[in-house]
């Protein structure tokens, strides 16, 4: 790539980066405002109760309550609260968990996050690849029994929530057939290590949650890709190529390449809901990921921890978004060379 060709690429990537930072800032602000703006929310009630109590009788408030008051800046003007909130985030301080006091939220979360990534990323990519392939083949053979089969199955499958599919799989394969474990990320009693025993146990427990995400996600990709292929097969450039005597196989290769580009963007847009689905799936499987700890935090109203989880999950999604944008910019010559980056 000549030097001049690098400029539009950097410009595009830079713009996306700026946009994501801006959006993240908005998201953070929402996270900050919500507990302070929602009337009658249990957090502010809890805090004001502690505040009143503390004013009258300072000894009675516990360490947990002290750190809560400090972190939420009770009694200070809202703008000061906001700035100190941002400042702490910037330093990587996500607050102290109520439940696991005096552990920092980040330390509480750290062991759970890899599990979620380990589940979500391979499953999403697998579904993306299989779904796109199926959809492309179906669109290419439009109107045949295979197309009908793929389309009709996808229409139903794409609407199955991951977690319900998870329940069906557990019921069938674990409860009825006893082939797979019913829950957990690894066998009880094992300690996480890089031993052969532990790794095989992890993989064994991985199958069902992985499958429930993959199967349920394939349909959506297949439907979208099929439509794109049908459109592209009717596009002017396809018709020109066919009329020049290009073979159907070569044309299809071109078409497939062209539809993968928008589907890469689709992957980025889809990450949020995929993550949402995966969190609930983890809950169903008692899988030791973020979904599990989120559920615990929610059911015990551990607000600092809840906030921290969202701060991190949203960062993760935006980071992934940025990687996808980056890949897209490399793959699509139109962006690489600074044109047609419109939508």
């Amino acid at each position: 790539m000549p030097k001049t060709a690098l400029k539009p690429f950097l410009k595009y990537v830079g713009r996306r980066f700026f946009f994501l930072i801006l959006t993240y800032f908005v998201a953070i602000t929402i996270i900050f405002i919500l507990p302070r703006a929602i009337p009658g929310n249990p957090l502010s009630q809890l805090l004001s109760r502690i505040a009143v109590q503390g004013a009258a009788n300072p000894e009675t408030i516990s360490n947990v309550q002290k750190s809560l008051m400090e972190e939420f800046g009770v009694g200070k003007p809202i703008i000061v609260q906001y700035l100190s909130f941002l400042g702490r985030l910037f330093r990587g301080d996500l607050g102290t968990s109520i439940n696991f006091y005096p552990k920092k939220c980040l330390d509480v979360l750290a062991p759970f996050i890899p599990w979620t990534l380990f589940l979500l990323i391979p499953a999403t990519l697998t579904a993306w690849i299989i779904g796109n392939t199926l959809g492309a083949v179906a669109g290419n053979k439009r109107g045949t029994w295979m197309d009908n089969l793929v389309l009709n199955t996808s229409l139903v499958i794409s609407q199955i929530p991951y977690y319900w599919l998870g329940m069906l799989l557990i019921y069938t394969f674990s409860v009825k057939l006893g082939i797979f474990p019913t829950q957990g990320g690894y066998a009880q009693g094992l300690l996480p290590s890089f031993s052969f025993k532990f790794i095989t146990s992890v993989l064994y427990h991985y199958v069902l949650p992985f499958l429930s995400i993959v199967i349920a996600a394939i349909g959506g990709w297949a439907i979208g890709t099929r439509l794109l292929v049908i459109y592209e097969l009717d596009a002017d450039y396809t018709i020109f190529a066919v009329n020049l005597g290009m073979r159907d196989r070569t044309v299809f290769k071109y078409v497939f390449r062209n539809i993968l580009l928008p589907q890469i963007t689709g992957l980025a847009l889809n990450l949020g809901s995929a993550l949402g689905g995966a969190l609930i799936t983890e809950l169903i499987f008692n899988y030791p990921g973020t979904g599990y700890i989120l559920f615990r935090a929610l059911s015990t109203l551990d607000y600092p921890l809840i906030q921290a989880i969202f701060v991190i999950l949203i960062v993760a999604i935006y980071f992934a978004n940025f990687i996808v944008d980056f890949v897209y910019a490399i793959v699509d010559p139109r962006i690489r060379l600074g044109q047609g980056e419109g939508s």
Partner: protein
Amino acid sequence: MKDTLILSLENVRSYYAKGNYYVKAVDGVSFNIFKGEVVGIVGESGSGKSTLSNVMIMNIKKPLNFIEGKVILNVGANFLELNTLPRQELQKIIWGRETSIVPQSAMNALMPTKKIRDFISDLVKDHFERALNEEEIIERAKQRFTDVGLSPNDIYRYPFELSGGMRQRAVIAMATLLNPRLLICDEPTSALDVANQKLVLKTLEQLRKREIVESIVFITHDIATVRQIATRMVVMYAGKIVENSPVEDIIKDPLHPYSRGLLLSVVTPEPEIKKRGISFIPGTPPDLANPPIGCRFHPRCPYKMDICEKEEPPLKKVDTNREVACFLFNK
């Protein structure tokens, strides 16, 4: 006639299947194209011109059905009846090599995410399975790009790096890369400004003069363009040919009432009417799913006779090289 026949259509019918009825887009069309001719096909929007261009190379795709007739192409040594060949065969030995279509929207006809050079090399591989030297073709492509007024280095660019007019010419260059006998241009100029239109027309003329292509079919709404480039004019109305005459003759003395109306619109000085093409002919074009019985033009025809409502006028020779489908000329 002693000229070499290039393409011959004999009573061709090709319909779009639509639920439980047909749209009769090409309905009993016969005509010949000889070597060296530039045939202009004109007609209102929806009269079946683009469909006809697909039928000429027998690219019949799903909703379109080939009902009957013969499509015969001269392939040098002998004549091939294209309508009997399977699609693969057409793809391999006819399309791109003997015939080529410059599509109606050539602006978007180039593979958007491939360099033109790579597209060409894929195309060549599909046609010749490596028997042909790729470098040779690339050299030829560069030459062809120069011929159409582009830089030879433009083949190393992506389509989106070219302007609209440049793309149009690149499409022409690529369509003629394998020296097809017959080049079909489906309104190649309608999306261009005047300067680029002229350039494209000149390019086409050059290609024919240098016998890179042997004949050109030029489809358009615009009679002025046909006048400029074509040697013969075929007038289509509602899926049928109503007149087929040398350009000078038809300009001087259009026979079919529809041709007459069509040409009047060009002579009319008001640019507004000119721009609106032929829509000033009173009435609307018929529904091709259910065309009028008899002559399809009779509901709009100022010279309508009784017979026109009952029988279809056949396309008949009225002069040595003029044909018209109208009862005014054959009783």
